[in-house]
């Protein structure tokens, strides 16, 4: 069989036969970041400082210096981010295989459940029900959890209460199962983390981080526009910045689907 011509792909996009969906939130200074107790080191929010804007600092050009954390805005988690993945080969954003940066995705719509319960947890039963409709999750796919969380105001998005953040995510059992039984490439969410807001109380704590990164898999978070993707059939382009030994990276996440 002859290799497919990548120009066919370009042509399909140019003609509109394939649709490109941007799953990325805009990097703005007031976008919520993960909050830890203040005695810990903190993720830096986005800061944009003008170098010049067609003015005395540079008459003909506009540009900025930016600062932000590896885990600020729509971002990618590499296995080295968690202790469970610290000894794996090629576990940082600068060494992970480029082939993994283009991969198909399954989208599980839990927006109704998340609207009803901010602490909604995705379970194995939910995924098995999804599989009855859409088929078994193939190996090497992303699994994206649609909650419509990205449509919330910043305050409701972070949803911080006296006893911590209340945002939806997976339970421990489904994460272990997705990684071990389905061989997923990674797990993506609309919330600040791949884990639920209350996941530090789970067993193990932060199960998405624990199981994904322990098996060399990836995380994507702060995604948006998941409601514009089909349950299956989309591919994701997720190329993190090539940061030396980076634990993650803000990135532009693009999905390509049938029109």
């Amino acid at each position: 069989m002859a290799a497919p011509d990548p120009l066919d792909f370009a042509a399909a996009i140019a003609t509109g036969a394939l649709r490109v969906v941007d799953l990325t939130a805009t990097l703005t200074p007031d976008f919520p970041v993960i909050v830890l107790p203040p005695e810990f080191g903190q993720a830096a929010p986005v800061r944009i400082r003008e170098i010049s804007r067609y003015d005395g600092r540079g008459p003909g050009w506009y540009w900025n210096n930016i600062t932000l954390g590896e885990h600020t805005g729509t971002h990618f988690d590499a296995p080295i981010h968690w202790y469970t993945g610290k000894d794996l080969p090629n576990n940082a954003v600068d060494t992970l295989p480029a082939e993994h940066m283009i991969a198909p995705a399954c989208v599980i719509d839990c927006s109704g459940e998340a609207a009803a319960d901010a602490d909604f947890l995705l379970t194995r039963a939910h995924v098995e029900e999804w599989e009855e409709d859409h088929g078994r999750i193939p190996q090497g796919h992303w699994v994206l959890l649609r909650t419509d969380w990205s449509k919330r105001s910043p305050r409701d998005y972070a949803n911080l209460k006296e006893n911590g953040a209340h945002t939806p995510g997976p339970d421990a059992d489904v994460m272990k199962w997705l990684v071990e039984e389905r061989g997923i490439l990674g797990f993506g969410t609309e919330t600040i983390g791949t884990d639920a807001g209350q996941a530090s109380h789970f067993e193990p704590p932060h199960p998405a981080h624990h199981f994904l990164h322990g098996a060399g898999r990836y995380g994507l978070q702060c995604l948006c526009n998941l409601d514009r993707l089909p349950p299956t059939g989309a591919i994701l382009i997720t190329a993190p910045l090539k940061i030396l030994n980076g634990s993650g990276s803000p990135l532009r996440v693009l999905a390509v689907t049938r029109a």
Partner: protein
Amino acid sequence: MVEPLQQPERRHPLRRTRQPSLPPMGRSRAGMLLTRAATEGRFALQRCGECGAFCYPAHDVCPGCLSTDLKLTDAPNGGILVSKTVVRVPADVYFRERAPWRIGMVKLDCGPTVIAHLHADCREAEPVRLSLQLDKAGQAAAFARPAGDTANAADDRQWREMTSPPKFRRVLVTNGRSAVGQATAAALVAAGAKVHVGIAEPWKPFEAGKALEGCTVVPLDVTDERSVRDLAADIGGKVDILINTGEHTRPGGLIGRQGTATIMDEISQTYLGFVHLAQAFGPAMRARGADGVDSAAAWVNVFSVYALANWAAFGTTSAAEAACVSLSHCLRAELRAGGVRVVNLFTGPLDTEWFQTVPPPKVAPKAVAKAIVSALESGVEEVFVGDVAEDVRQRLEANPKALERDLGA
């Protein structure tokens, strides 16, 4: 008799904003001794170490015995108003714009006769109390007030030139999440100001509660240049007093800290926060220094006293605050053209969460708030709040090296 100050009218739509002018600024090196006393709210004169006489104006040698041993010494401030003059057409632009202007000769109980600015209720041949005030140019000027209390004394027109009273002024308190910020906002509302309070990261929980009753809460993240600029675009033209209550305290020294992330946060919250505020709000404040009863009047910084002497237990926080003290001197020089004063408060450890394990005495946030209002109403420029801060001040003057060793122990 002083008429009580009235709520100022809104601006006339066609009138140009009055440009600030300043009283004469020149002082001799010796005269600067009096400026130093005025910044601290002390009444002090040179006193001869040999013959014991107080002298005024400032001299290089004692007018009585020609000794050069003239040290700034706290002096009794009582006297008698010998004569009173109203200057109706002064030659100087600043005083001409403010004429008629009262001055008088005060015979001090401690000896010298002083020509002083007069409060409206001073009567000839009656006792007065003299103080050294900072005028709009930031230099010491002698000011006489009646010895006793009089009605609406603080509303005297000439006294108001020497102070920055918050009454009827519009105030921005930069950090409404901190205990000091909340206490400050409440104290300023009580002092008759209209108060805006900044809240960073509005997506994080915030319960204003009773503390901010009567204030307007506005989004303000001093670490974000754009957030500060956006707020200045909204209210920059009507901030008469800005109170920078940053208060980002983190325990920890220098080499015990791994890396620089925490230190960058401190610099960002403390030093860059100050820079962003100054660049966004400074120009309009400087331009509005003579804009009527509610002109721009003062910029207040709340610093840790360890900005002046590094406390190793809070080593990098102290250093970030030290940078701000340096910056405040630059801002003071730049705002002087508008007659807007920069007031620095230095506090000892606050009675807040970040000083939880530090033993008392600690400064209550309300005490800081009270000191801010008092500084604005009395016109001082340097204030030490609490016993620890006062102790550090005295020890810095006596033996800074001993203090350094103790704070590093």
